[in-house]
């Protein structure tokens, strides 16, 4: 290897070594600040906002959103988007309940496979047929929604006799709801994959500069397929969790999660342009949306106004977190 030859101290050569176009504060600080400000405002509005009962409500709402959001984040990190999470969640929800009735606990692994396959197809439409993910997943999302309605046009219930098996999700362990423990496990999985594995790192490289990644020998096809499989996987898990908590499947369950999951990702500071952000960001993003959703009801914001306030919060948070200096034209 090369021998280190040093003619002088590194930092004193050539005057100032680095140029800073502006002091960049990592997006996550803005996201955390926003979350704390919201919590403070809602607490001032209603003392009970911070009650254990209410925090639990926020947590379980945010948990499912976080799980979908973590998957969505992977596709956004590579510079894509997954609009099919809604359709997939709807499909998995009904498939889960139907197969649960027939096979019991086998429904869990089966649905995980369904999610991974859907993600794999999404990825391949993008990488092999070369359709931008926005369009590709818009299309597959439609197909998945239809499939959900074909499996069951109406909501289906889990028979009360087998509620016990749903305790995997609905029960508690050491006093902590299993939903939260499962979410924690999913979070740790995504965190570890993105931080400590090659394929996770390749997701960042690909999202940051796909041409460089290709030229450096990264398999950009496999990387992008993997990101979409992660999204499918996460959406499937989220759908099962939701179905368990409501003791039944619903072919329209996923709709709200399409935009909510994207919002959770960007509010957390993961840029839609790809390459920056991460699992912790998405936790903050999902919590922010959970706090908003719950807090506005707790302090009694007019239901007609809630959507617009949520919209404003999303725009403000992206304005704060997104580094526009890196992109010359915003589309």
């Amino acid at each position, binding site marked *: *290897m*090369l021998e*280190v030859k*040093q003619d002088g101290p*590194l*930092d004193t*050569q*050539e005057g100032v*070594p*680095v*140029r*800073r*176009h502006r002091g*960049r504060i990592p997006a996550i600080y803005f996201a955390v600040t926003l979350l704390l400000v919201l919590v403070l405002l809602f607490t001032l509005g209603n003392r009970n906002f911070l009650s254990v009962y209410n925090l639990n409500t926020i947590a379980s709402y945010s948990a499912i959103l976080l799980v979908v959001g973590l998957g969505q984040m992977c596709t956004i990190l590579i510079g894509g988007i997954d609009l099919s999470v809604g359709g997939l969640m709807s499909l998995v929800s009904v498939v889960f309940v139907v197969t649960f009735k027939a096979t019991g606990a086998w429904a869990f692994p089966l649905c995980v496979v369904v999610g991974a396959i859907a993600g794999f197809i999404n990825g391949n439409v993008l990488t092999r047929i070369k359709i931008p993910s926005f369009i590709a997943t818009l299309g597959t999302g439609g197909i998945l929604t239809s499939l959900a309605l074909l499996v069951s046009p109406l909501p289906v219930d889990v028979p009360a006799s087998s509620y016990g098996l749903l305790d995997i999700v609905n029960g508690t362990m050491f006093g902590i709801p299993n939903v939260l423990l499962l979410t924690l496990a999913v979070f740790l999985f995504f965190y*570890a994959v993105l*931080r*400590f*594995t*090659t394929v996770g*790192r390749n997701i*960042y*490289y690909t999202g*940051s*500069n796909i*041409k*460089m*990644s*290709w*030229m*450096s*020998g*990264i*398999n950009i096809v496999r990387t992008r397929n993997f990101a979409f499989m992660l999204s499918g996987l996460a959406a499937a898990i989220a759908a099962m969790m939701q179905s368990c908590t409501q003791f039944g499947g619903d072919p329209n369950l996923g709709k709200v999660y399409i935009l909510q999951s994207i919002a959770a990702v960007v509010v957390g500071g993961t840029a839609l342009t790809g*390459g*920056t952000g991460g699992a912790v960001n998405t936790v903050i993003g999902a919590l922010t949306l959970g706090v908003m959703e719950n807090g506005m009801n707790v302090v009694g914001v007019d239901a007609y106004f809630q959507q617009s306030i949520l919209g404003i919060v999303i725009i403000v948070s992206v304005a704060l977190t997104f*580094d526009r200096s*890196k992109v010359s034209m915003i589309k």
Partner: protein
Amino acid sequence: MGMTAKEPALELERITKSYPGVVALDEVNFTVHRNEIVGLIGENGAGKSTLMRILIGLIQPDAGLYRLRGERVTLRDPASAARHGVGMVFQEGSLVPNLSIMENLFLCHEIGFRKFGFLSQRAMRKTASAVLSLVKIASDLDTPISDTTPAVRQMVEIARLLWLSRLYHQENPVLVLDEPTTVLTENERITLFRILTDLKRQASIILISHRLQEIVENSDRIIILKDGKNVAELDARRANIADIENKMVGHSFATERYREDEQVEPGNDIVLNVRDLSKRGEFEPFNFSVRKGEIVSLVGLVGSGKEAVCRCITGLDKPDSGSVSLGGKKLAPGSPSETVRSGIGHIPIDRRSEGLALGMTVAENVNLLVLDRLKVAGLISPVREKKNADRLIQDCRIKTPSSSTMCANLSGGNQQKTVIAKWLSSKIRLLVLDHPTRGVDVGAKEEIYKLIRRLAGDGISMIIMCDTLEEDIGLCNRMLIMKDGRLTSEMTCARDKKPSPSNIIALIV
């Protein structure tokens, strides 16, 4: 020429423009007289294109005066340049391919043809024919630009600039032509210069070309830039090419600059073997080999095919025939992942878009190829990652506050060192360096030369394409000269027997 007193149409005085780490233009003076063709000459990186961009308002100078027809102006953008009768025909073309000749001609300035709120097709056609006759084009006005030859496109652009200057009542427009002949056939070239000479009666023209012969033959005055400074101004009638070449590359051919005393004799084993490699439309069947620790420089004009050869070697392009083998093992064509895995590295010309993940940290960039080596129990260890990055930062003397600084915040030279460090950390045997010192300041250049010498000393073979001929000669052991897609000659550049740049220019052109 018969002109009376020379009247300046456009004057740039003491123009200075610097980018982080590089002074692109250093108090450059540039004057164009009325009814004159000025040839602007300089090597890549001499500052020609920066000067022209300032001239048409694409970028703003840091300091200096801009005068048009004797009056001080500030051109904020190319549109305001157009209003002042200044415009440029770009090398890569700036017309809209799916619009017709006529639509392109008047694009964005159709307002004058409005009649009762609609554009009058008749008036547009009449004007278009008149304008196009100035540049001797008889094509159908409705032909989409994508169906026309490069020569016609160029003429449409010139006609558009002439018409714009008339529209804004500017006498004697100033037109910039950047490498207008590279895309033309011999006949089209002759026609172009005939038209330009003709246009001289009503306009001033700035001509940029690598082909010195055509500059000398067709311009009135020649201005030479080198390293962002004026070096000479010549009367074209009295200029000779050898003299221009000397001024272009500079007399001071400093041997120690490229660390030639550190140049090593290559080993005997052949590392890279290229056999009958060809790509249609780019280069003819091509044979050469590179030995261990040898630096081979590929030299040739734009369009000589040298870039395409490198793209085929690095797997970015698929050749039509032939093979590339590394250490005796044939590589699958057109697969960057295979070439990288087998040990071929690539420093691309555009490091920002092809060499780095700018939004990621220095550590993440330099560790890209060696993540597997940094793992503990199957997972990337942050400790090892930082250690490896810190070692490379020291090794390649990357000046950065820390290994977790974003690459976008480094200067050009340090970004380039980051790219080199990335390849260095992996076990490469051959490195293709595409203009490794482009846009890098002098100090960082020195360090890059030093790195190249150390790599060669470690037995890594290299193929380089440099910004200047001087740099090619200084760095390489052997030089392959390409012209029109063929390998035309080969020249050894041993440590004490370096050929002179002017000898080689004769072989290139």
